[in-house]
Every structure is written in structure tokens, then in C-alpha cells.
């Protein structure tokens, strides 16, 4: 039975503290309520960063297992949501680096462009180009762009999650935008 969950599905701040204490004491229904309140966001972060449905579910599982095992260490200095997102980001970024070494479908943007042009059968869609260009960004830069521009996190939140200064987060997003413009410019010119 779920308890102390607001109608929107998000536990309120006051209720959340109770849920955390109960879950830390081994109350699985309280843990389930915390899970329900945050699973969608955690899964979305994981999927946006790794781009693989199965892996995103595995990462979501890892995030919550780690959180529940360490609930007694949560001091409440930041909100529980911030803690959850920080762990989700860290777990996802760590996994991405490991997975990337084994993944063959992730190709660099140059390789992707070459393949599509040589193939000649598929007219590359600009959306696909943009997505491929985002995929081809270096991990740290892509993470900042995805978290800020696509997921709507503030630079301060990204800074805390990635362990970088707020200004560094801004610089990475700026860098990402510059790289995207450079990568996509030839295609825009071609279309024109």
C-alpha cells in the first residue's frame, strides 16, 4: 500500500522525510512510495544519457538499490530529489563510459555522415542529423547540454551533480552549441 503520496504522485517535502525514515527502517511500502515519486525522472535521465531502453531500466534499478541501501546516510542537507538525481546522474555517466567501449552502434558524426551519403538510399533527416550530432559530443559536454537544454536543469544543479563549477557547466553548454553549429552548418548549406 502506498502512503503519504500527494495526488500528483509526488510525495510532499514533509511526507518525504517520514517516508525516508520509514524506508530506512526497512518499510518497503515507504520505499515503494519514494520509488513511485521519482522513478519516472530517474528513468528519463538514464535513458536520455544512455539511449538504450534495457540499459536505462538496469540503471534505474541500480540507482534505487543504491539509494535504499544508503538511506540512513541521507542527512537532508539537500532535498531528497536532488540526492536522487545526483546519484542517477553519476550512475548513468559511469555506466555510459563503460558501455561505450562495447557499443558498436555509436558512431562518430563523420562516420555517420559518410555512411549515409555513401549509401545514397536514405535522405538524411535533419532531426536525425541533430540527434547524431548530439550523440557524437564528448560525454561531459553532452551531459551538460542534455541536462540543461533538454532536461531543464539549472547550471548550479548540473554543477553539483557533475562535480564541476557552475561556470564550467555554462562553458560546456556553450561549447556544445558551438560544436553543433559547426557540425550541422554544412548540411544546412547543402540544403540551401
Amino acid at each position, binding site marked *: 500500500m502506498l502512503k503519504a503520496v500527494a495526488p500528483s504522485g509526488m510525495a510532499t517535502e514533509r511526507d518525504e522525510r517520514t517516508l525516508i525514515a520509514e*524506508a*530506512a527502517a*526497512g518499510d*518497503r511500502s515507504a*520505499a*515503494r512510495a519514494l*520509488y*513511485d515519486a521519482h*522513478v*519516472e525522472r530517474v*528513468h*528519463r535521465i538514464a*535513458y*536520455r544519457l544512455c539511449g538504450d*531502453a534495457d540499459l*536505462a*531500466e538496469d540503471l*534505474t*534499478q541500480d540507482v*534505487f*538499490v*543504491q539509494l*535504499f*541501501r*544508503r*538511506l*540512513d*546516510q*541521507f*542527512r537532508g*542537507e539537500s532535498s531528497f530529489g536532488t*540526492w536522487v538525481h545526483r*546519484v542517477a546522474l*553519476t*550512475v548513468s*555517466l*559511469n555506466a555510459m*563510459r*563503460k558501455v561505450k567501449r562495447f557499443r558498436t552502434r555509436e558512431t562518430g558524426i563523420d562516420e555517420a555522415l559518410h555512411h549515409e551519403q555513401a549509401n545514397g538510399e536514405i535522405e538524411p533527416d*535533419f*532531426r536525425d542529423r*541533430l*540527434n547524431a550530432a*548530439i550523440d557524437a559530443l*564528448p*560525454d*561531459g559536454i553532452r551531459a551538460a547540454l*542534455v541536462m540543461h*537544454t*533538454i532536461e531543464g536543469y539549472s547550471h548550479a544543479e548540473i554543477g*553539483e551533480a*557533475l*562535480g*564541476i563549477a557552475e561556470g564550467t557547466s555554462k562553458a560546456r553548454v556553450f561549447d556544445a*552549441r558551438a560544436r*553543433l*553549429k559547426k557540425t*550541422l*552548418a554544412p548540411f*544546412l548549406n547543402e540544403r540551401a
Partner: protein
Amino acid sequence: MDDKRLDELLDDARKTYRVPPEPAVEAIWQRIDAEAFLAPGGATRRPTDRRFGAVTWRVAAASLVFGVLAGRWTSGVGLPGATEADPAQVTSSMSPVLRPYQKTTEELLGKTAVLLAALGTDRTSASFSSHVSDQAAQLLGTARMLLDSPAGSEPGIRALLLDLELTLAQVARLQPSRGETELMLINEAVAERDIVPRIRSAVVDLSGGGY
């Protein structure tokens, strides 16, 4: 392409870039429930490989120190009484781009390995965390400087430096209040990315001119 056009594209990306499928909420919960609450030790169980990891790193760090000393001994560099070898000979096969940064890179790798070994000892007191964080912040600065230097354009060393940057950034923000969780995540990441073996390999390559 101007910023306005890019903003339009990124607006579209919010709706279309890696749109997550509906997660299997119940199935994921079942696995979490089984692993976090039903497994022996329950929600407070510690991963069993954690202690193994700490021991592994201490051994790896010791091997690293041994490897560096052995490399210097065989090349005649840095040991009392040894004849100084001609640096040009020692680094003859090293990329010219890396030569000016060799000493800094070696120092960074060595100090980072020692730092990671210290992390593996599981000490999360306030003074320890503060000391480690300060040291990591200094090393992070060096790693970023190398990444921005011509040495950072060497593919072999760049990949390692990028991993070190992320790891050191995590260590630099380590706080005693949440040290246990953060430390666990860092330790897992270091193990998963084979960072210590890669540092050891890089040091050997640098000493022997592999890059």
C-alpha cells in the same frame, strides 16, 4: 547557422531526442525489492566487491610505484648513483607533442594512483575527506591543464585524462556528511573504468616512450 536556428532545433530536440519509452515500473520495482530488501542483509547490505576493490587498488598502487621505479631503474633515470641517460634517447619513440609534458603527466598519474589507493581504505572522517578533496582539486586542475594543452590531443593519453577529470571532480566534491555513498560510487566507477590499470599502463608507456 545562427543561434536562433539552433534554438529552434534544440526546442525540437526536447521533444524528440531520446524520448524514453514507458519504463516497466513494476518489473523494475520487483528487482529493486528483491535486491535491496529481500537479499541477505537487506537494504543495509554492502556490496561484497567493495572491500575486494579496495584491496585490489592497494595492490595496484603498489605495483604502480614498483613499475615506475623499475622503469626508471632500467632507463637509468632518477636513481641515486645511476648514470643519467640522455633524455632524447629515453624518449626517442615518444610523441614530440608529449615530451614537454612528460614529467607533469607522470606526476599527475602517480599522485592520482596514490590518491585512489587512499580512497580504497574506506576512511570517511571529516579531516580525511577534506585532505583528499583538496588534493583531488589540485590534481583536477593539472588534469584539465593537460587536457587543454597539446598533450591532450594525444588520443591515448586524452581518454585517460578525461576519465581522471571526471573521477577527480567527484573526489574533489567529496563531503564527510555523504561520504559513504559518494565514495562507493567513485570506487565503483574507478573499478569499472579500469582506471588504476590504465594509469599503470600509461606510466610504463611514458617511461618507455610508448606514446
